[in-house]
């Protein structure tokens, strides 16, 4: 318990120290763009694959469970739409991103720590938390919600393809389901979740990577811990946000 509080305290201090005046804003901007590319573009492939299949599988399984003459076909599309916006895209994709992006951030910073690259930056008079951590969190804040929007679109599209190809329903029924009783707040809620999860993934991974002590073994351990803690916190935040906002 004391150890957890110690970690929490150091985590808060890291976040506080992160906000200082950049030595040269051009270099920081370049680093921010670099991180947007690293976190966003390099994760796009896995997000596309997961999202399309998530939508397709949800369609087929929902159709399998709703075999009733009392339930209209378009209801399946409604279920796909709402479950995608509310849960599947933000939560499942962010858990995958915790693995992909989180482990990358933790191992990159951990490697910089053990090879004294962070010390080298400190000696130059650079605030390493501002230079190394802030661009990663800022880039995650920008690109992860964008990835979630892409995921939402692709997941619904995957559901549509599966529905039409397997004959679960036709195009008109699917389109009707997508627009009928649509609550715009569901989309907003999905985005609020994605911003929250983006912060959790990037800051937790940066914390564990930045504070690595030791060598290659410890980098691996920090990377695993970062992913596990991020996933757990995502699930806690998922429940917390649902209980608070829905």
């Amino acid at each position: 318990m004391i150890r957890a509080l110690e970690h929490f305290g150091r985590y808060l201090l890291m976040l506080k120290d992160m906000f200082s005046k950049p030595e040269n804003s051009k270099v920081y901007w370049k680093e921010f763009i670099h991180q947007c590319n690293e976190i966003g573009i390099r994760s796009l492939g896995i997000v596309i694959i997961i999202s399309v299949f998530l939508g397709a599988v949800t369609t087929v399984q929902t159709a399998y469970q709703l075999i009733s003459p009392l339930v209209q076909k378009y209801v399946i599309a409604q279920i796909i739409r709402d479950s995608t916006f509310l849960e599947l895209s933000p939560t499942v994709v962010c858990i995958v991103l915790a693995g992909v992006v989180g482990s990358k951030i933790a191992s990159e910073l951990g490697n910089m720590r053990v090879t004294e690259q962070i010390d080298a930056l400190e000696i130059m008079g650079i605030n390493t938390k501002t230079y190394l951590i802030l661009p990663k969190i800022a880039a995650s804040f920008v690109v992860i919600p964008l990835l979630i929007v892409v995921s939402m679109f692709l997941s619904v599209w995957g559901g549509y393809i599966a529905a039409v190809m397997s004959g679960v329903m036709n195009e008109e029924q699917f389109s009707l389901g997508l627009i009928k009783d649509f609550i715009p707040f569901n989309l907003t809620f999905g985005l609020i979740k994605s911003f929250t999860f983006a912060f959790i993934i990037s800051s937790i991974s940066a914390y564990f990577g930045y504070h690595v002590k030791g060598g290659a073994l410890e980098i691996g351990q920090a990377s695993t811990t970062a992913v596990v803690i991020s996933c757990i916190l995502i699930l806690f935040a998922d429940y917390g946000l649902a209980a608070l906002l829905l």
Partner: protein
Amino acid sequence: MIEVKNLSKSFGQKQVLDNVSCVLGSGQMNLIIGTSGSGKTVFLKCMVGLMDLDHGEILYDGQDFIHMNDKEKKELRTQIGMLFQGSALFDSLTVEQNVMFPLDMFTKQTLSEKLKRVNEVLDRVNLKDSNRKYPAELSGGMKKRVALARAIVLNPKYLFCDEPNSGLDPQTSLVIDKLITEITKEYNITTIMNTHDMNTVMESGDNIVYLYQGSKRWEGNKEDIIFSEDEKLNQFIFASEFLQDAKRMRMRG
């Protein structure tokens, strides 16, 4: 010139540095020598502020480093260059980008001015035609040269070198030593170097501080060390029979 007064540092119950005091002159090769675990690296890290010390004073040309605020420390650090044991080059950047990094961060020079300066220092450390290479493509000696080029690119007043010869063959070690010595004299830099290497001690030691179990045991220069009567220092410096013979021959003149 750097003055260190009564520097102490402990980790829990273990006293790593105990009241170490010394004066490290400018334009000189100041060597910190001692066996592994004698506190050399901790001494260096305390001096540059990578570790907090328990008590003591560090004066950079009379300026008290310990009581400086963050802004003053930041300013001072732009005058410090450091060569790390493992080179500490940024993996994702090329040689050119590594050396240019401090210029990008702290100067408002144009790209052509920065490139000119980068090529100048790379040329100074005898490293040409490697600008586009990544650290992973370089040998140990080349990495050290790039790290040295990066350390001097902003014309520092103080240069810290943490065992720059570790992992290098004797010939390359001599080349690196020679480079650091030349640069120290050329730019009148206060150079502080941690080393185990006896060639470095005998070739470059203008001022040598011998640390033994966290305390300063001996101080002098490369000439004094030959005639030193200190038993522990002699055991450390002239560890092999070959070196003991060399010492006897030197003493006989």
